[in-house]
Each structure stands twice: as structure tokens, then as C-alpha cells.
């Protein structure tokens, strides 16, 4: 365990970004989003939920796959270079960390998505415990502990200090590179400081867990969402009622840390050749399944159902029961029509 004064965080960030890129929540134009740190940027670790999740750091909203040129009928393909620069993502909350596991199972399964894999290989994640979880949080239902966020290094901000605990090799390596800044609070070398730190963290953890226990959405009943209930859930008449206010925008999918659908498109840059890029897509959009011979999902109800069935039934069926929702609550606070996965879980789960 290590510790650093909160007032010295800017120094810490400067040190980290000396050797690599550093992404962390930045306050820009009244909103907090992950961005590349520099001296001029204003970081914001108090906002619990960034608008977009940290998914952007590993699976960017749009990225070029390759460039293609046609010179006198001869095609040439120039694949985009894979990420080869190490980077650190600082301040990821427990839910976002778990979401990376959900994405890993998609992108790192065979055949591996090399663009994503390269970023995962070069990225080190420093997580941050949630000091005060909000009423829109429901991570507890998915077995996530906001008091122990995991990843390569986990940290807690307690009063005027940041407590730092490396968990993996990558985390240790990062810690070593910051040796001059982080005060050692290790049991072997500095037993007094270690005891103090352990105590402070334990107290913080129990306070976080206490809050979570009391949150209104912490105790949802997920028992009906099992692969064997696929058809029953799929055919439920409740969808017809639930989807009604849906505006078919993509807010929920784009702020979601686990949504991974993408589209592949071309941009014809004239003499610069064609860029083939991929960008996030949303199953809520009407053209998501549009084909030359027609569309398989013609109503918004079907698209709405696909999103939640995928998160709660289809994905777990392929991934040992792991839900593709981490309870971050972004959709709860951002949906223009106040629809969200909690309402679906409650209604379909037979609660409301």
C-alpha cells in the first residue's frame, strides 16, 4: 500500500504522463469525460460518473481500420498501425473496470480483435473506489464491489490522501516508476504507516458498502434472466408496453460501458484514398439490421427488446452467466424518455 497527498495529484499525473499517455476524467465545457491529460486540463475525480464510460480508451467511438487507394485500377491497402504506446487510464470506477471484462470476452475471444488487444496490452488501469455511490447505482446486483474496484492498481481517496494499492505486474511496474512520489505504507518497511493506511481504507470500505446496501436499486431480482427462459422472456407481452416511450436514439448505447456493437463504414477522401473506419453503432437505430432485401426488425419494440435480451439473456448464455450490464446507472440518468434497464429488470422480473 502507498499513499500520496491529494494536493500532490497534479504532480503524480505529470509524473505518469512523462513516460506514457494518461487518460482520466477531465472537466470540459461543464461535463466530465475521459480525456488526455496535460498541465492545462482540469481533472475531476469528484464526479462519480463520466458521461461516456472509459470504454472509449480501449474501444474508441470511431477508429480507422485501414486506408485503401486505387491508383490506375491497382488497389493498395494500408492497415492502421496498432497501438504501440503505453498508456494509463486513471480513475476508472469498479463498474467500468468490470465492463472491460465484459468487452474482453467479446474482443479477445477467437478471432482476437487486434486493435482492441493492442490497447489492452499497452494500457494500465488505475481504478478508484466510489466515495459516495449515488441512487442511480446498482452495481451490487452484478457482484461488483465499489469499495474494492480491482484492475491493475486500486485507489481510494480518503480525506486529504490518495491510497494506492498495486494488484498486478503492470500495476507494480507503474508503482515502481512513481517511487519518488508515492509514500511507502508497506507492512514490511513502514509498519506504522501501513497500519494507519490499512485502517483508513478498511473504514472507507465499510462506509461505502453501508451506503450501497441502502441504495434503492441495490436489490434487484435477476433470477428470471436465465438462458432457459429465453423464449418466455422473448415472447412476453410486457415488451409492447415497456418500449412505448423509446425515442430510438442511441444515448443508452453510447453511454453504456458494455455496449460493443459497431458499424464499418467508408469515408472517401478523394485523392487521399478511402478510409475504412469502424464506429459505435446502436441496435436502437432503425437501419441496424437493414439489408437489401428488407429489415428483420421492423418495429422499435423489436429493437428495444434485442438490446435488453442481449444484455440479460443472450450474452450470459455465451459467457458463463456473466451479465452484460454492470449497473453503472448511466442509462438511468441519461435516457431522454426515462427508460432504462432497471425498469426492464423490474417489470420482466415480475417485480412491478
Amino acid at each position: 500500500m502507498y499513499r500520496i497527498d491529494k494536493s500532490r495529484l497534479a504532480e503524480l499525473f505529470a509524473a505518469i504522463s512523462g513516460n506514457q499517455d494518461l487518460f482520466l476524467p477531465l472537466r470540459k465545457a461543464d461535463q466530465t469525460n475521459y480525456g488526455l491529460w496535460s498541465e492545462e486540463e482540469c481533472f475531476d475525480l469528484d464526479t462519480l460518473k463520466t458521461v461516456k464510460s472509459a470504454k472509449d480508451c480501449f474501444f474508441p467511438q470511431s477508429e480507422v481500420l485501414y486506408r485503401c487507394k486505387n491508383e490506375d485500377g491497382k488497389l493498395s491497402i494500408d492497415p492502421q498501425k496498432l497501438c504501440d504506446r503505453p498508456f494509463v487510464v486513471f480513475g476508472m470506477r469498479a463498474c467500468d473496470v468490470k465492463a472491460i471484462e465484459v468487452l474482453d470476452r467479446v474482443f479477445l475471444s477467437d478471432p482476437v480483435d487486434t486493435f482492441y488487444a493492442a490497447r489492452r496490452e499497452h494500457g494500465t488501469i488505475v481504478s478508484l473506489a466510489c466515495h459516495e455511490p449515488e441512487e442511480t447505482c446498482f452495481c451490487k446486483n452484478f457482484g461488483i464491489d465499489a469499495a474494492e474496484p480491482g484492475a491493475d492498481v486500486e485507489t481510494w481517496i480518503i480525506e486529504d490522501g490518495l491510497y494506492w494499492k498495486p494488484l498486478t505486474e503492470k500495476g507494480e511496474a507503474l508503482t515502481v516508476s512513481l517511487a519518488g512520489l508515492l509514500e511507502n505504507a508497506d507492512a514490511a518497511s513502514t509498519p506504522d504507516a501501513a497500519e494507519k493506511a490499512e485502517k483508513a481504507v478498511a473504514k472507507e470500505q465499510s462506509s461505502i458498502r453501508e451506503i450501497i446496501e441502502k441504495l434503492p436499486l441495490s436489490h434487484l431480482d435477476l433470477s428470471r434472466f436465465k438462458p432457459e427462459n429465453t423464449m418466455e422472456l422473448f415472447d412476453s407481452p410486457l415488451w409492447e408496453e415497456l418500449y412505448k416511450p423509446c425515442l430510438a436514439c442511441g444515448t443508452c448505447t453510447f453511454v453504456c460501458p458494455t455496449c460493443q456493437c459497431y458499424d464499418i463504414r467508408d469515408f472517401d477522401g478523394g485523392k487521399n484514398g478511402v478510409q475504412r473506419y469502424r464506429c459505435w453503432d446502436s441496435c436502437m437505430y432503425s437501419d441496424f439490421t437493414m439489408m437489401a432485401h428488407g429489415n428483420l426488425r421492423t418495429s422499435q419494440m423489436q429493437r428495444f427488446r434485442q438490446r435488453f435480451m442481449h444484455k440479460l439473456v443472450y450474452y450470459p448464455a455465451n459467457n458463463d452467466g456473466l451479465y452484460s450490464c454492470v449497473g453503472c446507472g448511466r442509462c438511468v440518468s441519461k435516457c431522454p424518455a426515462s427508460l432504462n434497464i432497471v425498469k426492464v429488470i423490474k417489470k420482466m422480473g415480475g417485480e412491478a
Partner: protein
Amino acid sequence: MQELITRAKELLADGTVSRVLGWKKGDMGWDPEPAYFEKEEDLKDFVYNPFCGANLSKYLIAAGKLPGTTLVFLKPCDTYSFNQLTKEHRVKREKTYIIGVGCHGTLKAEKVLSAGIKGIEDAAIEGDTLKVKTLYGEKEMPLMDALLERCQVCKGKTHVVFDELIGAEEGEEAGPGGLAGNRFAKVEELEAMPPKERFAFWQEQLSKCIRCNACRNVCPACSCLKCVFDGNQFDSSQKANADTFEEQMFHIIRAYHVAGRCTDCGECSRVCPEGIPLQLLNRKFIKDINTFYGEYQAGADTESRAPLTDFTFEDVEPGIVSERGGGR
């Protein structure tokens, strides 16, 4: 609220309407969702409080295709959108039964929550104060700090179309508690900036855009069956967000397509997950139209010609933009 429910039940019972379009209680007290009610007993979940910001006019496009009449509750500014949609033949007046409801302003939940008010159950407006009923007792905050931007500069409390009114105070010009501000103030402020700063302002705001299309899909004026961005023409597709140009293109064209039709209902800026002040784009068009072609309020009536489908021989020349300079 009880009055609304009672009246809705009556109208459902006597067969005047086949369904009711209103707001349903959410999980949190601050997130009511737009909802249809088809049976009297469903109305137990009906809610109308200052958190009911959603403009239900847009839902009437879909409701119009259902059999029978739909009862809808519209706030004063929502009625402008309804009129505009009638004018564009997107909704049918005769298939809609409008109850105009009183409005003292609608709230931005985020603002209330970030003021530290938690466990919200209900809210009410009393003069300049917002009274919030919470799990931890009653809390208060200044109304102005909790309102949606559009309500801080309220257009007025007149319903321009309705079948009956409940709880409405007609004719009162000013907004909630007489707090109406100049809605063009921020536009004027931007106009007065040097172009470089203006550019920087918009660059910062628009670069937040995640191309979720919430602004487009919630907008009552954006009622095209197939949007120009639903395709790959103009290299600016619906969701690409590949570089800054795409975001600018999307927002300029969207604002342009609703120019002269936008009633300034403020739904786009209400729903934007990134809090982009989209109303500033729409209001710039409204302001220009007012200055160049005379005062015009879209949706105030269903007959007048829209400014962009009309002209006079004496219209100003486009060169005026350069002549007057300074971004006005």
C-alpha cells in the same frame, strides 16, 4: 394532479378518447416517463409534477396512427409544437383531445440532485421556491437554480391550442414567478465575441457530441421519415463521429432544417447527454428571422407561411452578414 386523473377517467369512461398520453411515475421521483394509459386503473401511476419536462407532442405522430382519439396533456410551450405539427400535416387535430395543463416551470433533475437533494419523492413550486419532498423530509431551493434553461426564459403561459384547460393561468406573459429573461441574451453575448473566440466556444461544445441523435429524435420538428443523416450521402452519417467536421455539419444542418419551424421548445438541450447548449443554434436562426423578416413564432398558428418558404421583394441581401460584421 388529481383533477387531471379524474378528468382523464371521465373521458375514457364516456368513450370520448381511447387512450391517454401523459407521464408515469418513475423509480426515482425525478424520472417520470412519457406513457400511454388505456384503462382507468392504469392511471394510478399517472403523475404530473415539475419533473415532467417531456414534450408529448412528438408522440402524437405515432399516436395519430392508432384507432380512436388520444387524450394528451400539453404544457403551454408544448402546444406550439403541436400546432406546428398540425401545420405540417404530421398530426391530426381531430384525432387528439388536448387538455392544457398549468405549468410553473419544469426542472432539470441534474441540477436538483447536484444541489445535494437526495431521495426525491415529489416536488412542487411555490413562488420563487422549489419545495422537494424527500425521504429525509422537505427540502427547499431557489426555483431559478433548478429550472431547465428553457423555463428560465419562459415564453409565456398561453396555450395556443386546447380543448379544455385545467389548472392553467391563461394570458400571463411572464414565466414562472415572473422570472422571464431575455432568451436571446446568450446569443447576443456570443455575437459580440471575436470570431476566434466564438469558434473556440463552439469547437469545445460540439466536440462533446457523441452523435446519439437524442436531439434529433426528441425534436417535434424533426419528423422526417428518413433523415438526411440516415445514409452515407454527404459523408456524414447518423452516428459516425469520426472528426470535428462531422459534428459541426450535423448540428448546423439540423438547426438549419428546423429553422423557421423550431418553436424553441427546448427539448434538444433538455435531452442532450453532454449538455450541449443546442438552443443557442436554434435561437440564432429565430433571432435572425425576427430581425430580417419580422417577428415570427413557429407554431403560434396553423396558417401563416413559414419564413423560409416565403419571401418579399425587399428582403435583405446575404451581404448584410458581412456588412454589419461582428457576428450579429
